[in-house]
């Protein structure tokens, strides 16, 4: 990821359509220790080829939804980040 400050390595999980587009269900990525969620999402989208579904994605950090993409996320080494396409359980 493009970043100037300190970075940590986190696990990124991909599901459903995002998994298919990324051609991967899991990846390890260096991320800044603090970053605005929408900036992070943009970087992941471009790196993993998710442009076509960008506007439908949300993020979960350590198994909790990031409700607002304008929020900042604080990362620690080994955190889990998930790319969440629209849900369709039930």
């Amino acid at each position, binding site marked *: 990821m493009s970043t100037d400050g300190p970075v940590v390595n986190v696990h990124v*999980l991909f*599901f*459903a*359509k995002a*998994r298919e587009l990324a051609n991967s269900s899991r990846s390890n990525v260096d991320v800044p220790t603090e970053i605005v969620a929408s900036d992070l999402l943009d970087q992941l989208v471009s790196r993993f080829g998710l442009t076509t579904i960008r506007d*439908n994605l949300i993020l*979960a950090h350590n*198994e*909790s*939804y990031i409700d607002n993409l304008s929020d900042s996320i604080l990362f620690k080494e080994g955190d889990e980040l*998930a790319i*969440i*396409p*629209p*849900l*369709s*359980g*039930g």
Partner: protein
Amino acid sequence: MDHVKLVNNPIDIAHIHQLLADEGCGASSVFVGTTRDNFQGKKVVSLAYEAYDNMALKEMKKICSDLRSKWPELKHIVIYHRLGTVPVCEASVVIAASSPHRSEALESVSFAIDQLKTRVPIWKKEIYEGDHDSEWKENKE
């Protein structure tokens, strides 16, 4: 008691009813979501479900807590979701609750299925007959 599970095999409905049984309860409500055979004129052969397992279980447990704070009389709650391939007519999800009186059981099950669809990280892909591309579905708000 709360019974929350992701399962890879057919869900045994009779067992769900047993989990709800309680001498102090007068009412059980059971919702079963099943795979339909059609979508916009295309014939559906099966559904393929995948989940963000740990987070899905966490969200399913949160739904249980929410139900208990809204309807404190609830006795047993069951939320089972099946993963992998689910053939037409088989259950993908079962949500059930028992309570002394009927309104709590009925209302909480309705509420829980809406919650599940909006916040539990599970996805389904419909697989169609013929050469239609399979499609990731999207729950409406």
